[in-house]
């Protein structure tokens, strides 16, 4: 009998788990990369472009910003304002809150073209308009998850069932962390609510816990349990760590377990984090013009501060930073709600892009990847019916086409698209829509909203597969 090869190989096992358990979406993309990294590429051979991505900042606009008011201008919809949609449009239509008396709503904000690309952008996003040539807008993303929690989890993990690794976990798992003093995957939350779906949006699923997102906050204690407890002064903490490590080293000498060496390292890094993190998190060290550009205020807790912190973190080697801003669930009060949300986010997001560019952190050929489900839901027809089919002279027109092609295929599949010119703004369209409180009146709104994540996503290049589309392994 030959010796069985049962040596435990976590990567091998994880890969098998992935093959068996993972759905589609961002997780799949990231995995593909890490398999490439590990020399186990299973889907394609050489990327078309050499991957250069090192770090990712993902701005997740949670709650569903309306793409029709921000990035997807539908002038024809104005004509139908207040009228009921054609009956056949809603036939068999599955959505939250819509009922037969929900009327159509025309655009409430003005659009104009910006930049060399001439992309149409809402007046609500002057900041984004100013950097639009560094941005790629992707239209034509679909989802079949029309409730917040499952939709957001789908976007972040590739499955609307809980428990799969998030994109940040995959990326950190695949690429490791460059920072010795900070976690590899960092998460911030802002907005009027918390992130629907909670921790699972940045969880590690079946990957080791090491790869899950670590939530940081502005303020006194950016990392949970980072500060010395009251009465433990600095010297005592240092003596404590030294003594713990001495005793652990002594134990290592006696019992020889390499795990003890890892523990010693963990305690050392914890101490470094204690001294390092407050400095990184202290935005008052930024010059005034930078603070002004972002609209950041030291000591406050805001999306603007988080954008600036994200830049400070990626500068220091943090691999993946994800900002959740959960405030976009406008059922009623669309006009005031959107105006306020854009005021809170647009300037800082645009400043982040400019700032990164200025620092040479936006490469020429970075990529953004999005997952789309091919099954075109009826609401999409609604948009086409009511709106125009104006060709989009944007760098990503072909993306929409690719997605369209995908939608014609018989079986749902993941379609991954990459823009040749990146850091981008993406819109994930999804139904949701309309009002809860006033939907029974004839004049009620119907706001086809950007479902889960009209997610401006800045990347300093994440290596992604070159082919515009590929099938998921299982």
């Amino acid at each position, binding site marked *: *009998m*030959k*010796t*069985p090869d*049962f040596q435990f190989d976590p990567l091998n096992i994880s890969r098998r788990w992935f*093959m*068996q358990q993972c759905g589609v979406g961002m997780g799949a993309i990231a995995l593909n990369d890490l398999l490439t990294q590990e020399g*186990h*590429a*299973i889907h394609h*051979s050489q990327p078309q472009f050499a991957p250069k991505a090192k770090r990712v900042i993902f701005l997740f606009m949670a709650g569903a910003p309306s793409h029709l008011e921000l990035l997807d201008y539908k002038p024809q919809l104005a004509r139908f304002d207040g009228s009921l949609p054609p009956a056949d449009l809603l036939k068999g239509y*599955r959505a*939250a*809150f*819509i*009922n037969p008396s929900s009327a159509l709503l025309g655009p409430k904000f003005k659009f104009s073209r910006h930049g060399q690309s001439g992309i149409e952008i809402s007046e609500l996003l002057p900041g984004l308009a100013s950097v639009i040539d560094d941005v790629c807008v992707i239209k034509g993303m679909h989802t079949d998850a029309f*409730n*917040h*929690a*499952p939709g957001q989890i789908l976007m972040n993990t590739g499955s609307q*069932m*809980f428990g799969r690794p998030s994109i940040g976990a995959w990326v950190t798992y695949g690429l490791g962390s460059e920072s010795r003093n900070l976690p590899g995957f960092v998460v911030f*939350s*802002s907005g009027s609510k*918390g*992130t629907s*779906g*909670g*921790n*699972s949006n940045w969880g590690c699923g*079946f990957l*080791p*816990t*090491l790869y899950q997102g670590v*939530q940081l906050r502005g303020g006194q204690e950016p990392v*949970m*349990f*980072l500060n010395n*407890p*009251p*009465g*433990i*002064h600095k010297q005592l*903490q240092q*003596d*404590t*760590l030294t003594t*713990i490590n001495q*005793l652990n080293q*002594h*134990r290592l000498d006696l019992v*020889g*377990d*390499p*795990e*003890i060496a890892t523990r010693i390292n*963990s305690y050392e890094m914890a101490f470094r*984090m204690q001294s390092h993190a407050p400095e990184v998190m202290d935005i008052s060290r930024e010059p005034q013009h930078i603070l002004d550009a972002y609209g950041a205020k030291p000591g406050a807790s805001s999306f603007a501060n988080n954008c600036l912190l994200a830049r400070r973190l990626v500068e220091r080697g943090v691999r993946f930073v994800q900002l959740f801003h*959960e405030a976009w669930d406008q059922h009623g009060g669309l006009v005031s709600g959107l105006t306020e949300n854009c005021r809170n986010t647009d300037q800082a997001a645009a400043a982040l892009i400019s700032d990164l560019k200025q620092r040479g952190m936006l490469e020429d050929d970075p990529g953004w990847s999005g997952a789309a489900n091919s099954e075109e839901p009826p609401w999409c027809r609604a948009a086409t019916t009511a709106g125009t089919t104006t060709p989009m002279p944007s760098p990503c027109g072909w993306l929409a086409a690719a997605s369209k092609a995908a939608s014609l295929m018989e079986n749902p599949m993941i379609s991954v698209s990459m823009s040749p010119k990146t850091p981008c703004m993406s819109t994930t369209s999804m139904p949701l829509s309309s009002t*809860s409180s006033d939907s029974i009146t004839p004049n009620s709104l119907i706001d086809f909203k950007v479902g889960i994540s009209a997610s401006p996503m800045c990347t300093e290049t994440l290596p992604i597969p070159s082919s515009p589309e590929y099938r998921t392994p299982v």
Partner: protein
Amino acid sequence: MKGVWKSGMFLTVLWMISTAVVEADQVDFAREIRPILSEFCFQCHGPDEQKREAELRLDVPDVATAARDGHTAIVPGNPEASELVARITSPDPDSLMPPPETEKQLTPEQIQTLKEWIAQGAKWDRHWAFKPPVRPALPEVSQEDWVQSPVDTFILHALETQHLSPSPRADNRTLLRRLHLDITGLPPTLEEIDAFEAHNSQDAYSGYVDHLLQSPHFGERWARHWMDAARYADSDGFEKDKPRDVWHFRDWVIQALNQDLPYNQFIIEQIAGDLLPNATQSQKVATGFLRNSMINEEGGIDPEQFRMDAMFDRMDAIGKSILGLTIQCAQCHTHKYDPLTQLEYYRMFAFINDSAEGSMVAYSPSQLQKRAGILQAVKDIESEIQHMFPDWQSRLTRWENSIQSNPSIWTVTKLHHRGDNDQRYEELPDGSLLAGGYAPTYFTATFTNVVDMPTIRGVRLEVLTDPNLPAHGPGRSVQGLFSLSEFKVLSKSLVDPEKEKWISFSQATADFSNPDTQLEKPYTNYEGQSSGMTGSVAYAIDGKNETGWGIDAGPGRRNQSRKAVFAASENMAWEGGTILEFHLVQAQGGWNSDDNQNMNLGRFRISLTDQESPTADPVPDNIHRILTLPPEQRSTLQNQTLFSFFRNLEPEWKPFNDRIEKLWQSHPEGSTQLVLTSQEKIRETRRLERGNFLNPQEVVTPGVPEFLHPLPPKDQYSRLDFARWLASEDSPTTARSMVNRIWQAYFGIGLVATPEDLGSQAAVPSHPELLDWLAVELMENGWQLKSIHRLILNSSTYQQSSIVQPHHLELDPQNRYLARSPRVRVEGEIIRDISLAASGLLDRSIGGPSVYPPAPEFLFKPPASYGPKTWNTQLDSNRYRRGIYTFRFRSVPYPMLEAFDVPNGDFSCVRRSRSNTPQQALTALNEPVFMESALALASMTLNLGGRSDTDRLDFAFRRCLTRNPDPLESQTLLRFLNTQRERFLQNRDQAAELIQAHSLTNESGPIDPVPLASWTALCRILLNLDETIMRQ
């Protein structure tokens, strides 16, 4: 160091290859060939028809050896003639297998093995795990005196084959601590250490193992593993992530394990305990296992979508935790590796697709006892009445005759929901509506219907119980209650919609209304003011939203169908047809609809009558149903129920009735538990194309996969048959899966490293014969899990030292051969338990509701959590309960447990990861409970640990580590102590601050804070040592 390690690797590889060459006899299909075929070929040439290429499958011998287009994939005995060999060695990329684009490549060794196998006759065999385990003979070993348990022969045999030798027995204290941590999850107390030292011998050891296996903490420690598999959590998950009551299930698991409930019974009760004859509360509670799935009650959801998600989750849990198979793959398509078709998946699914999604009221053991006493006392009083009034029977008959033969005056009316789909309504066959999905608070539900009755003089609203509601309803509050603030009807003419009128009601009657009850927390507004009160049905037509009709009859009698009748002052109908609009105002409830604060109607039905001034029939439906039976056909229970109702109607019996009423008022208040309840309406199960519930295909009947053991023939199958099938001795994987996980818990890695998957893609077992031997042993021992624990714990294998020798790392870095005991970090819960036990803070009470230890407040508020969550940090000893009792919000995991790899119940987990991170260091150093433990241990040390620093150090050290410090440790720690003492003497304020900040009492503390503060600093070190959190 790195170089040495590398050359070690090299040696290992060399040694493995040379072993292979020396022992190249018969190729073993199961171990060597199937894994290759599975990994490289089955994806296109395996079980899945839809993905199969060239009609070739290599998992079925007849097909693989059949000629097709002049080629034969495998010609047994003739590798040269076999197309497979030609293809895997082809230089032509178009012909090469596996295709280059798959990026899968066979190694030369694998190709050679395949060739040898074909040359030897290409014998197929079923995958090992799909054949029932057969007890193998114990292998021969040379070092017989090492063998203490049959387990040892298998381990020793493998070690001897590999020229490894076992490690010596661990020292007593290490062994004692190991036993305690492994069996109970708590370190030994000082008394236990002394007692163990005093009686140490092999006999004493076995006795000690038995003693610990009897500890009530055994169930707590081992329940945690099962709760991971059962994806236990205390909240719904998804967006609202509302708290739920499921802790009765946790208590059930702890008790079942403590009592060593046979594992087959353990499974049967969890899958179908409710269907067992005369099911007990405990057997019903056990079915909480499948109900641990998440529930989404976001606004506007389709409840069926998330019921399906929950069903998939249940199937996954059954696959991973019971069968040890990845059956969830077949949810969307036929399994790629195991011979499981998608149809077979849905046939298993059909067994469990019968359940309602509500909860039952469950009681603690003492409450159960009290309840039984009350029911008996009521019965006794009723017997007393019958004894004292021998004419009771004729009185009853007289009453019966007086009320019978009233034809129903009511016509059920259909209800069309006119709302915005926030709360969803499912129409049931009897014309009633069942509310589901999001439960708003402070809202009005509006329904319409067109009615052609010429006269309408009254409306009846029936509120009905349903197994899909909390505690069976009839409301949706956590207790199954509701408040109907206002009942309003707008009547419009069908002919002329301009004509409309709000109906005024002259009278409202009900068969039951509760006495006036002010609503308290959580049914309050944001400022904490009550949302009003419930009481008489008249409150539903008083024009005030702050009063409503309530039906709370108190614990034990609360959840019953009731009815209200509203008599109209005028004819509600219009000539030519009437559009009726029913407005059900439900304005009571709390401000936060993301929490359990609703007081909504659950299931209800509306009927109309043309009779003037109708009133509510005081006789409930269940009594009417009994009355329809001829007296001789009524059961004892029915007669009792009838009498219990009737006795209230006799004024003469008032004293008796008052006594009974008083008894009911002392009835204990239980709590709800999510359970399975078979619903009357049988659901049709269909195969779902790609697992999409909107794409149902053919109807499927309950059944089991062909590759597993058969189901005994029967006309009609129930969930109980499936439960028995899962727990059958014929099941090839059930027993293996369980013994493998017990092994994994003791040795860090299972005999199969992938406990969730024993199928074709499973990791190769390290000791396959031992796995089978243990599986058979379990079944032949009446499925007593403790018998397996005993075999392992009494083995020499278990008792070895865990000291790692350099050659261990070279030859067997993962310790699969077990030439030493593993050294493993304990689970997150146990890290907390050790700290609390060592410091004396631990509250060792067992069972009961989950508790709220300290956690950062910001976690439970936006933007950290979606909505505000209630976390009332415990200030009593519940603050220091074992980790298993910590309340678990799925979307906001408890930080300390999360840091130490505790899964949060999102999906079935049969193998935890074990990480070693800086966050863990920060947590153990700075988290409040660790600080409180350090302070408590210091305080105890100063009080009880002797007078000298050395004695005190020994005391504290032993409480954490079971052993005394060695001289170097002692010296290091005392030096640290002296330094800190010096420093605190200079800064007494810091010492006082340290004590003040971490002590719960507001007392001023010791007069001199310096000793306590310095010892706290030292104890903090002890709690943070690697060894403290290791099982070694």
